[in-house]
């Protein structure tokens, strides 16, 4: 059942990696990249989460069933967020509307 062991050095390396990623995230936020910033920050967060999941939470050594739960959780959150946020984002752009009265938001 156990394919890969989590060892003390691995834990330490993961911890350091998490700290580095945190400062990387902090650093990019100071660059003033605008919209891209959020995407980068979230991408870094996802990487950090994967580190926590696989090493700290020992997901590497666990059965597929447990991994499936994680996959489903991520999938459903992504789904909930995208399909929900697609609504306000496409209200004005699909179909493109020339007249302002039809746009619900000024």
């Amino acid at each position, binding site marked *: 059942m156990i394919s890969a062991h989590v060892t003390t050095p691995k834990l330490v390396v993961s911890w350091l990696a998490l700290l580095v990623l945190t400062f990387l995230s902090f650093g990019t936020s100071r660059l003033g990249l605008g919209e891209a910033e959020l995407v980068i920050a979230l991408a870094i967060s996802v990487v950090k989460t994967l580190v926590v999941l696989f090493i700290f939470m020992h997901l590497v050594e666990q059965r597929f069933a447990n991994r499936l739960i994680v996959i489903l959780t991520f999938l459903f959150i992504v789904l909930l967020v995208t399909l929900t946020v697609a609504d306000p984002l496409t209200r004005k752009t699909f179909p493109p509307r020339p007249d*302002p009265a039809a746009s619900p938001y000024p």
Partner: protein
Amino acid sequence: MNELLRTLLFLPRQASTIAEEIDTLHYFVIIMTMGGALLVTLIGGYFLVRYRRTAVQKEPARRMPGTTPAIWLEVVVVVGLFGMFIAWWVIGFRQFMAIRIPPENALEIYVTGKQWMWKFAYPEGASSISTLYVPAGRPVKLVLTSRDVIHSFFVPDFRLKQDVLPGRLTTLWFEAKEPGRHDIFCTEYCGVSHSTMRGEVIALSPDEYERWLQGQSPGPAVAGPVDLRPSSVTEYAPPEPVSMVRQGERAAAEHGCLRCHTLDGTPHLGPTFAGLYGTMVPLEAGGNVKVDEAYITESMMDPLARIHAGYQRIMPSYLGQIRPAETSAIIELVKSLRDVRPKPGASEPWGTVTVPELREEGQ
């Protein structure tokens, strides 16, 4: 065929230009649905009889345990069904887009829903309650918003419906085929009198509509259909105003004041006129000002100079747009409302919708 199916399915009249098209899809979908359900049930029933235990025991050849239908049959059935559903979606979505996108030349009418009535404001300044007058044979675009909770504007005869949301504007458009009267229902549950929040669309011939707008046609000459009408609040065009106050009301409606200011103390985009006269109001720039003739006149001519705190800077200037007689009539109107108590929260603006086209509308 259309009439027969329409009557059988209990569908109302097809009074808008798109109703018949939608109904055609409706018939197709319902017939397929009913047919499919009956077919499946009949096949199931047939199997139940044919393979009943007593018969199988008499004639063991009927029994075929573990038979599975051919894979091609499954594929055909599934792909066929899926194709049909997707076809429904394609047709339905095209029709939906047609319903949702108003034509460029549509006549715009503002609709406000509130518990439990509909208010209509026309571009020329007229307004009505519960009864919407529209010209037949011309696309009409409704711009809808709500003062309180979610309502839904539904005209069964037009096959159209749109939720009416507070803090947002939604649109709905239709073209009535010919003069006639049609029910309006509120279909989003909105409180205790939800089921009485009904109204009526009266489609007039273009000439009659013009005459109604000018207030010359108190009772539009439209013969109602034979079925019973809902007991709705119906208010025809007001007779010619006499007093200053009535003239003020009319002017306020014509110039679009009532689109932001209310007369009954309900909070809206601008300060309500109810109970306003003679009070001290806070200014955005700080300090207070007494609402008197001077301040009201200034607010009409240069509204942003000293704006009431808490309200958005959206009011256009009426300098040169409004006749002096009308100005004084509106002041009389505000004066006459000094004893009307505003509702709680009326001193705060309600909702965050700005109406950018107000400038053009106000002329």
